[in-house]
Protein backbone atom coordinates (compact mmCIF):
# COMPACT_ATOMS: atom_id res chain seq x y z
CA UNK A 1 0.00 0.00 0.00
CA UNK A 2 1.25 3.50 -0.73
CA UNK A 3 2.21 5.58 2.30
CA UNK A 4 -0.55 8.16 1.90
CA UNK A 5 -3.12 5.42 1.61
CA UNK A 6 -1.83 3.78 4.78
CA UNK A 7 -2.26 7.07 6.63
CA UNK A 8 -5.71 7.40 5.12
CA UNK A 9 -6.90 3.94 6.11
CA UNK A 10 -5.64 4.03 9.68
CA UNK A 11 -8.41 4.07 12.23
CA UNK A 12 -8.69 2.99 15.87
CA UNK A 13 -10.18 -0.38 15.00
CA UNK A 14 -12.39 -1.76 17.76
CA UNK A 15 -13.93 -4.75 15.98
CA UNK A 16 -11.46 -7.51 15.15
CA UNK A 17 -12.20 -10.91 13.62
CA UNK A 18 -11.58 -13.05 16.71
CA UNK A 19 -11.38 -16.27 14.73
CA UNK A 20 -8.60 -15.14 12.41
CA UNK A 21 -5.06 -15.33 13.76
CA UNK A 22 -2.39 -12.83 12.77
CA UNK A 23 0.54 -14.35 10.94
CA UNK A 24 3.81 -14.16 12.84
CA UNK A 25 5.58 -12.66 9.82
CA UNK A 26 3.19 -9.71 9.91
CA UNK A 27 3.95 -9.16 13.58
CA UNK A 28 7.64 -9.22 12.74
CA UNK A 29 7.12 -6.67 9.95
CA UNK A 30 5.53 -4.34 12.51
CA UNK A 31 8.41 -4.86 14.92
CA UNK A 32 10.88 -4.21 12.09
CA UNK A 33 9.21 -0.82 11.59
CA UNK A 34 9.46 -0.06 15.31
CA UNK A 35 13.11 -1.17 15.22
CA UNK A 36 13.79 1.43 12.55
CA UNK A 37 11.85 4.27 14.16
CA UNK A 38 13.75 7.44 15.10
CA UNK A 39 15.53 7.16 18.44
CA UNK A 40 15.18 10.11 20.77
CA UNK A 41 18.69 11.39 21.53
CA UNK A 42 19.92 8.22 19.83
CA UNK A 43 18.99 6.25 22.94
CA UNK A 44 17.86 2.64 22.71
CA UNK A 45 14.72 3.02 24.82
CA UNK A 46 11.83 1.14 23.25
CA UNK A 47 11.03 -2.47 24.15
CA UNK A 48 8.04 -4.56 23.06
CA UNK A 49 6.55 -7.80 24.24
CA UNK A 50 4.24 -9.62 21.83
CA UNK A 51 1.43 -11.47 23.55
CA UNK A 52 -0.73 -14.05 21.79
CA UNK A 53 -4.25 -14.11 23.21
CA UNK A 54 -4.66 -17.84 22.66
CA UNK A 55 -1.45 -18.61 24.55
CA UNK A 56 -2.79 -16.97 27.70
CA UNK A 57 -4.45 -18.94 30.46
CA UNK A 58 -8.02 -18.09 31.37
CA UNK A 59 -6.72 -16.41 34.54
CA UNK A 60 -4.22 -14.31 32.62
CA UNK A 61 -6.84 -13.25 30.10
CA UNK A 62 -9.19 -12.35 32.93
CA UNK A 63 -6.49 -10.30 34.64
CA UNK A 64 -6.15 -7.87 31.73
CA UNK A 65 -9.87 -7.29 31.28
CA UNK A 66 -11.58 -4.14 32.40
CA UNK A 67 -15.30 -3.32 32.28
CA UNK A 68 -14.85 -1.49 29.00
CA UNK A 69 -12.11 -3.39 27.15
CA UNK A 70 -13.32 -6.92 27.65
CA UNK A 71 -14.73 -7.48 24.18
CA UNK A 72 -11.70 -6.01 22.45
CA UNK A 73 -9.37 -8.22 24.50
CA UNK A 74 -11.33 -11.22 23.24
CA UNK A 75 -11.46 -10.10 19.64
CA UNK A 76 -7.82 -9.16 19.08
CA UNK A 77 -5.59 -12.22 18.71
CA UNK A 78 -2.36 -10.30 19.33
CA UNK A 79 -1.37 -7.60 21.79
CA UNK A 80 1.89 -5.66 21.55
CA UNK A 81 2.91 -4.05 24.81
CA UNK A 82 5.35 -1.15 24.60
CA UNK A 83 7.83 -0.43 27.36
CA UNK A 84 10.62 2.08 27.93
CA UNK A 85 13.97 0.80 29.14
CA UNK A 86 14.93 3.39 31.72
CA UNK A 87 18.54 2.28 31.85
CA UNK A 88 19.07 3.37 28.25
CA UNK A 89 20.50 6.75 29.24
CA UNK A 90 22.80 5.21 31.85
CA UNK A 91 24.12 2.73 29.32
CA UNK A 92 24.81 5.59 26.93
CA UNK A 93 26.95 7.49 29.43
CA UNK A 94 30.19 6.33 27.76
CA UNK A 95 29.03 7.97 24.52
CA UNK A 96 30.06 4.86 22.61
CA UNK A 97 26.96 4.68 20.44
CA UNK A 98 27.31 8.31 19.35
CA UNK A 99 30.98 7.83 18.54
CA UNK A 100 30.05 4.81 16.45
CA UNK A 101 27.60 6.97 14.47
CA UNK A 102 30.36 9.56 13.99
CA UNK A 103 32.75 6.86 12.76
CA UNK A 104 30.09 5.62 10.35
CA UNK A 105 29.81 9.16 8.88
CA UNK A 106 26.22 9.44 10.11
CA UNK A 107 26.78 12.28 12.57
CA UNK A 108 28.89 14.67 10.50
CA UNK A 109 31.62 16.98 11.70
CA UNK A 110 29.96 19.76 9.71
CA UNK A 111 27.33 19.84 12.41
CA UNK A 112 29.85 19.72 15.20
CA UNK A 113 29.95 16.00 15.88
CA UNK A 114 33.32 14.78 17.14
CA UNK A 115 34.32 12.25 19.80
CA UNK A 116 35.48 15.14 21.95
CA UNK A 117 32.11 16.88 21.62
CA UNK A 118 30.39 13.71 22.78
CA UNK A 119 32.70 13.32 25.80
CA UNK A 120 32.77 16.95 26.86
CA UNK A 121 29.30 18.19 25.94
CA UNK A 122 26.68 15.57 25.12
CA UNK A 123 27.37 13.11 27.90
CA UNK A 124 27.83 15.56 30.81
CA UNK A 125 25.47 18.29 29.64
CA UNK A 126 22.67 16.27 28.08
CA UNK A 127 22.60 12.67 29.29
CA UNK A 128 23.79 13.38 32.81
CA UNK A 129 21.34 16.24 33.23
CA UNK A 130 18.50 13.96 32.21
CA UNK A 131 19.48 11.38 34.78
CA UNK A 132 20.03 13.89 37.56
CA UNK A 133 16.98 16.05 36.93
CA UNK A 134 15.81 16.99 40.40
CA UNK A 135 12.27 17.48 39.14
CA UNK A 136 10.95 13.98 39.79
CA UNK A 137 7.50 12.50 39.28
CA UNK A 138 5.90 9.58 41.05
CA UNK A 139 5.20 6.71 38.63
CA UNK A 140 3.96 4.07 41.06
CA UNK A 141 5.49 2.13 43.88
CA UNK A 142 8.69 0.19 43.61
CA UNK A 143 9.59 -2.84 45.66
CA UNK A 144 12.46 -2.32 48.06
CA UNK A 145 15.88 -3.42 46.97
CA UNK A 146 17.20 -6.49 48.71
CA UNK A 147 20.01 -4.41 50.17
CA UNK A 148 17.52 -2.02 51.75
CA UNK A 149 15.57 -4.91 53.19
CA UNK A 150 18.71 -6.31 54.74
CA UNK A 151 19.81 -2.91 56.04
CA UNK A 152 16.46 -2.29 57.69
CA UNK A 153 16.45 -5.78 59.12
CA UNK A 154 19.91 -5.22 60.53
CA UNK A 155 18.82 -1.99 62.13
CA UNK A 156 15.75 -3.55 63.68
CA UNK A 157 17.43 -6.71 64.87
CA UNK A 158 20.50 -5.01 66.21
CA UNK A 159 22.84 -6.34 63.58
CA UNK A 160 20.95 -9.49 62.55
CA UNK A 161 20.34 -10.47 58.91
CA UNK A 162 16.70 -11.52 59.08
CA UNK A 163 14.85 -10.49 55.92
CA UNK A 164 11.61 -8.72 56.72
CA UNK A 165 8.82 -7.32 54.62
CA UNK A 166 9.29 -3.64 53.95
CA UNK A 167 6.52 -1.48 52.59
CA UNK A 168 7.03 -0.48 48.98
CA UNK A 169 8.19 3.09 48.49
CA UNK A 170 6.85 5.48 45.88
CA UNK A 171 8.82 5.05 42.67
CA UNK A 172 9.94 8.33 41.18
CA UNK A 173 11.61 9.16 37.91
CA UNK A 174 13.39 12.26 36.68
CA UNK A 175 10.81 14.21 34.69
CA UNK A 176 13.26 14.64 31.79
CA UNK A 177 13.76 10.87 31.56
CA UNK A 178 10.02 10.24 31.62
CA UNK A 179 9.41 12.79 28.86
CA UNK A 180 12.15 11.15 26.82
CA UNK A 181 10.72 7.68 27.40
CA UNK A 182 7.17 8.69 26.51
CA UNK A 183 8.34 10.48 23.37
CA UNK A 184 10.32 7.44 22.23
CA UNK A 185 7.40 5.09 22.84
CA UNK A 186 4.98 7.45 21.07
CA UNK A 187 7.15 7.55 17.97
CA UNK A 188 7.46 3.76 18.05
CA UNK A 189 3.70 3.31 18.41
CA UNK A 190 3.03 5.57 15.44
CA UNK A 191 5.36 3.43 13.32
CA UNK A 192 3.71 0.27 14.59
CA UNK A 193 0.19 1.52 13.90
CA UNK A 194 0.91 2.55 10.33
CA UNK A 195 2.86 -0.63 9.70
CA UNK A 196 -0.08 -2.72 10.92
CA UNK A 197 -2.45 -1.19 8.39
CA UNK A 198 0.20 -1.55 5.70
CA UNK A 199 0.22 -5.28 6.51
CA UNK A 200 -3.54 -5.43 5.99
CA UNK A 201 -4.37 -5.48 9.67
CA UNK A 202 -6.32 -3.28 12.03
CA UNK A 203 -4.94 -1.90 15.28
CA UNK A 204 -5.99 0.09 18.29
CA UNK A 205 -4.14 1.54 21.27
CA UNK A 206 -5.95 0.34 24.36
CA UNK A 207 -5.48 1.12 28.02
CA UNK A 208 -4.64 -1.97 30.05
CA UNK A 209 -3.40 -1.83 33.62
CA UNK A 210 0.38 -1.31 33.49
CA UNK A 211 0.77 -3.24 36.72
CA UNK A 212 -0.94 -6.26 35.20
CA UNK A 213 1.04 -6.03 31.97
CA UNK A 214 4.27 -5.80 33.93
CA UNK A 215 3.43 -9.02 35.73
CA UNK A 216 2.19 -10.75 32.61
CA UNK A 217 5.26 -9.88 30.56
CA UNK A 218 7.69 -10.55 33.43
CA UNK A 219 9.74 -7.53 32.53
CA UNK A 220 12.74 -6.16 34.44
CA UNK A 221 12.02 -3.57 37.12
CA UNK A 222 13.77 -0.84 35.14
CA UNK A 223 11.31 -1.04 32.23
CA UNK A 224 8.62 1.61 32.46
CA UNK A 225 5.07 0.46 31.77
CA UNK A 226 3.06 3.60 31.21
CA UNK A 227 2.25 3.06 27.53
CA UNK A 228 -0.94 1.81 25.93
CA UNK A 229 -1.17 -1.71 24.57
CA UNK A 230 -1.57 -2.13 20.81
CA UNK A 231 -4.35 -4.57 19.97
CA UNK A 232 -3.85 -6.20 16.61
CA UNK A 233 -6.03 -8.29 14.33
CA UNK A 234 -7.94 -8.47 11.10
CA UNK A 235 -10.92 -6.15 10.65
CA UNK A 236 -14.25 -7.73 11.56
CA UNK A 237 -16.07 -4.91 9.84
CA UNK A 238 -15.30 -2.66 6.92
CA UNK A 239 -11.99 -0.88 6.49
CA UNK A 240 -13.96 2.38 6.46
CA UNK A 241 -14.87 1.70 10.11
CA UNK A 242 -17.43 4.47 10.02
CA UNK A 243 -15.29 6.88 8.03
CA UNK A 244 -12.42 9.15 8.90
CA UNK A 245 -12.87 10.85 12.23
CA UNK A 246 -13.91 14.49 12.23
CA UNK A 247 -11.14 16.87 13.17
CA UNK A 248 -11.14 20.44 14.30
CA UNK A 249 -10.55 22.91 11.47
CA UNK A 250 -7.05 22.52 9.96
CA UNK A 251 -6.33 26.19 10.47
CA UNK A 252 -6.93 25.93 14.22
CA UNK A 253 -4.10 23.44 14.58
CA UNK A 254 -1.44 24.68 12.18
CA UNK A 255 0.18 28.06 11.80
CA UNK A 256 2.52 29.70 9.37
CA UNK A 257 5.39 31.88 10.56
CA UNK A 258 3.86 32.57 13.94
CA UNK A 259 0.97 31.63 16.18
CA UNK A 260 -2.22 33.30 15.06
CA UNK A 261 -1.45 33.12 11.35
CA UNK A 262 -3.26 29.99 10.21
CA UNK A 263 -1.64 27.65 7.73
CA UNK A 264 -4.50 27.78 5.23
CA UNK A 265 -5.40 24.53 3.46
CA UNK A 266 -4.88 24.64 -0.31
CA UNK A 267 -7.93 22.99 -1.94
CA UNK A 268 -5.71 21.71 -4.73
CA UNK A 269 -3.58 19.76 -2.26
CA UNK A 270 -6.72 18.44 -0.56
CA UNK A 271 -7.97 17.23 -3.95
CA UNK A 272 -4.68 15.47 -4.70
CA UNK A 273 -4.67 13.76 -1.29
CA UNK A 274 -8.27 12.65 -1.81
CA UNK A 275 -7.24 11.08 -5.10
CA UNK A 276 -4.36 9.38 -3.29
CA UNK A 277 -6.74 8.22 -0.54
CA UNK A 278 -5.03 9.94 2.37
CA UNK A 279 -8.19 12.01 2.78
CA UNK A 280 -11.25 9.77 2.72
CA UNK A 281 -14.96 10.08 3.38
CA UNK A 282 -15.54 11.42 6.84
CA UNK A 283 -18.01 10.05 9.38
CA UNK A 284 -20.93 9.65 9.47
CA UNK A 285 -21.39 7.08 6.74
CA UNK A 286 -25.02 6.33 5.97
CA UNK A 287 -24.63 2.57 6.43
CA UNK A 288 -22.56 2.62 9.63
CA UNK A 289 -25.44 2.01 12.06
CA UNK A 290 -26.42 -1.08 10.13
CA UNK A 291 -22.85 -2.30 10.28
CA UNK A 292 -22.62 -1.66 14.03
CA UNK A 293 -25.86 -3.56 14.57
CA UNK A 294 -24.66 -6.52 12.51
CA UNK A 295 -21.28 -6.59 14.26
CA UNK A 296 -22.94 -6.50 17.68
CA UNK A 297 -25.22 -9.40 16.69
CA UNK A 298 -22.34 -11.41 15.26
CA UNK A 299 -20.09 -10.94 18.28
CA UNK A 300 -22.80 -11.16 20.95
CA UNK A 301 -22.38 -7.59 22.11
CA UNK A 302 -25.07 -5.36 23.57
CA UNK A 303 -26.70 -2.60 21.54
Amino acid sequence: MEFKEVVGWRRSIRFFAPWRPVEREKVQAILEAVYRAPKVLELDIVRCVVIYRDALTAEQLESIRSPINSAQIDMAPVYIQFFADLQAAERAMDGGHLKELIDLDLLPASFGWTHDYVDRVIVPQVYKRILTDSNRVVVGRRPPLLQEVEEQAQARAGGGRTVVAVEAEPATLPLSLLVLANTAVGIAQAHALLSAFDEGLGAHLCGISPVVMKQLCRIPDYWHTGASTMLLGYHAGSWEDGGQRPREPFEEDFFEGRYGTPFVQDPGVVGRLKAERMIQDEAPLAWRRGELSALADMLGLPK
Partner: protein
Amino acid sequence: MSVPFHLLDRPITEYIGVKLWLEEYGQFWGIPPSMIDQELSSSLLILERFCAFVGKDPDQIAGECLRPSKVGEGVMLRTKARREYIGLIADFERKEGSRASGSAVRSFFIHNGVAMTPSALR
Protein backbone atom coordinates in the same frame (compact mmCIF):
# COMPACT_ATOMS: atom_id res chain seq x y z
CA MET B 1 -40.03 -16.20 36.46
CA SER B 2 -42.58 -13.65 37.62
CA VAL B 3 -41.36 -10.58 39.39
CA PRO B 4 -42.46 -10.22 43.03
CA PHE B 5 -44.98 -7.36 43.11
CA HIS B 6 -43.13 -5.54 45.87
CA LEU B 7 -40.11 -5.10 43.62
CA LEU B 8 -41.91 -3.43 40.77
CA ASP B 9 -44.76 -1.28 42.05
CA ARG B 10 -45.63 -0.04 38.57
CA PRO B 11 -45.16 -1.11 34.96
CA ILE B 12 -41.46 -1.42 34.20
CA THR B 13 -41.66 1.21 31.45
CA GLU B 14 -42.59 3.81 34.06
CA TYR B 15 -39.25 3.65 35.84
CA ILE B 16 -36.97 6.58 35.06
CA GLY B 17 -34.04 4.38 34.11
CA VAL B 18 -36.18 2.35 31.73
CA LYS B 19 -37.62 5.48 30.13
CA LEU B 20 -34.08 6.74 29.60
CA TRP B 21 -33.05 3.38 28.12
CA LEU B 22 -35.93 3.35 25.65
CA GLU B 23 -35.37 6.96 24.67
CA GLU B 24 -31.60 6.64 24.20
CA TYR B 25 -31.86 3.30 22.44
CA GLY B 26 -34.51 4.61 20.10
CA GLN B 27 -32.53 7.73 19.27
CA PHE B 28 -29.33 5.81 18.65
CA TRP B 29 -30.83 3.06 16.51
CA GLY B 30 -33.34 5.29 14.76
CA ILE B 31 -36.50 3.69 16.16
CA PRO B 32 -39.52 6.00 16.46
CA PRO B 33 -40.85 6.48 20.03
CA SER B 34 -44.16 4.92 19.00
CA MET B 35 -42.40 1.66 18.13
CA ILE B 36 -39.76 1.42 20.81
CA ASP B 37 -41.87 -0.56 23.33
CA GLN B 38 -42.61 -3.13 20.65
CA GLU B 39 -38.99 -3.22 19.48
CA LEU B 40 -37.70 -3.89 22.98
CA SER B 41 -40.65 -5.91 24.27
CA SER B 42 -38.59 -9.06 24.82
CA SER B 43 -35.75 -7.02 26.34
CA LEU B 44 -38.19 -5.45 28.80
CA LEU B 45 -39.30 -8.89 29.95
CA ILE B 46 -35.67 -9.89 30.34
CA LEU B 47 -34.98 -6.80 32.43
CA GLU B 48 -37.95 -7.70 34.65
CA ARG B 49 -36.46 -11.13 35.19
CA PHE B 50 -33.07 -9.58 35.99
CA CYS B 51 -34.75 -7.32 38.55
CA ALA B 52 -36.22 -10.41 40.18
CA PHE B 53 -32.82 -12.10 39.98
CA VAL B 54 -31.10 -9.32 41.94
CA GLY B 55 -34.15 -8.33 44.01
CA LYS B 56 -34.10 -4.68 42.98
CA ASP B 57 -36.05 -2.40 40.69
CA PRO B 58 -34.47 -0.75 37.62
CA ASP B 59 -33.94 2.61 39.26
CA GLN B 60 -32.30 1.06 42.30
CA ILE B 61 -29.96 -0.87 40.00
CA ALA B 62 -28.96 2.16 37.94
CA GLY B 63 -28.73 4.31 41.06
CA GLU B 64 -26.27 1.94 42.69
CA CYS B 65 -23.85 2.40 39.79
CA LEU B 66 -24.08 6.18 39.62
CA ARG B 67 -23.92 8.81 42.32
CA PRO B 68 -24.37 12.58 42.10
CA SER B 69 -21.11 14.40 41.50
CA LYS B 70 -19.71 16.22 44.52
CA VAL B 71 -18.61 19.07 42.29
CA GLY B 72 -21.03 20.58 39.85
CA GLU B 73 -23.68 18.73 37.92
CA GLY B 74 -23.67 15.26 36.48
CA VAL B 75 -23.06 11.87 38.02
CA MET B 76 -20.03 9.81 38.93
CA LEU B 77 -19.65 6.15 38.10
CA ARG B 78 -19.35 3.79 41.05
CA THR B 79 -16.82 1.36 39.62
CA LYS B 80 -17.13 -1.19 42.42
CA ALA B 81 -20.90 -1.41 41.95
CA ARG B 82 -20.42 -1.71 38.20
CA ARG B 83 -18.01 -4.62 38.69
CA GLU B 84 -20.52 -6.34 40.94
CA TYR B 85 -23.27 -5.94 38.36
CA ILE B 86 -21.00 -7.18 35.57
CA GLY B 87 -20.63 -10.37 37.59
CA LEU B 88 -24.37 -10.56 38.31
CA ILE B 89 -25.22 -10.12 34.63
CA ALA B 90 -22.81 -12.94 33.74
CA ASP B 91 -24.52 -15.14 36.37
CA PHE B 92 -27.94 -14.19 35.01
CA GLU B 93 -26.83 -14.95 31.46
CA ARG B 94 -25.64 -18.40 32.54
CA LYS B 95 -28.86 -19.02 34.44
CA GLU B 96 -30.98 -18.09 31.45
CA GLY B 97 -28.66 -19.91 29.05
CA SER B 98 -29.00 -17.01 26.64
CA ARG B 99 -26.52 -14.47 25.42
CA ALA B 100 -29.43 -12.29 24.35
CA SER B 101 -30.54 -12.05 27.98
CA GLY B 102 -27.16 -10.69 29.06
CA SER B 103 -27.05 -8.30 26.12
CA ALA B 104 -30.50 -6.89 26.93
CA VAL B 105 -29.52 -6.13 30.52
CA ARG B 106 -26.17 -4.66 29.46
CA SER B 107 -28.02 -2.44 27.01
CA PHE B 108 -30.11 -1.09 29.90
CA PHE B 109 -26.92 -0.23 31.81
CA ILE B 110 -25.15 1.28 28.80
CA HIS B 111 -28.01 3.60 27.88
CA ASN B 112 -28.15 4.71 31.53
CA GLY B 113 -24.52 5.83 31.31
CA VAL B 114 -22.91 2.75 32.86
CA ALA B 115 -20.44 1.62 30.19
CA MET B 116 -19.61 -2.07 30.06
CA THR B 117 -18.73 -4.71 27.53
CA PRO B 118 -18.89 -8.46 27.93
CA SER B 119 -16.57 -11.03 26.44
CA ALA B 120 -17.04 -11.25 22.70
CA LEU B 121 -18.30 -14.45 21.13
CA ARG B 122 -15.56 -16.24 19.20
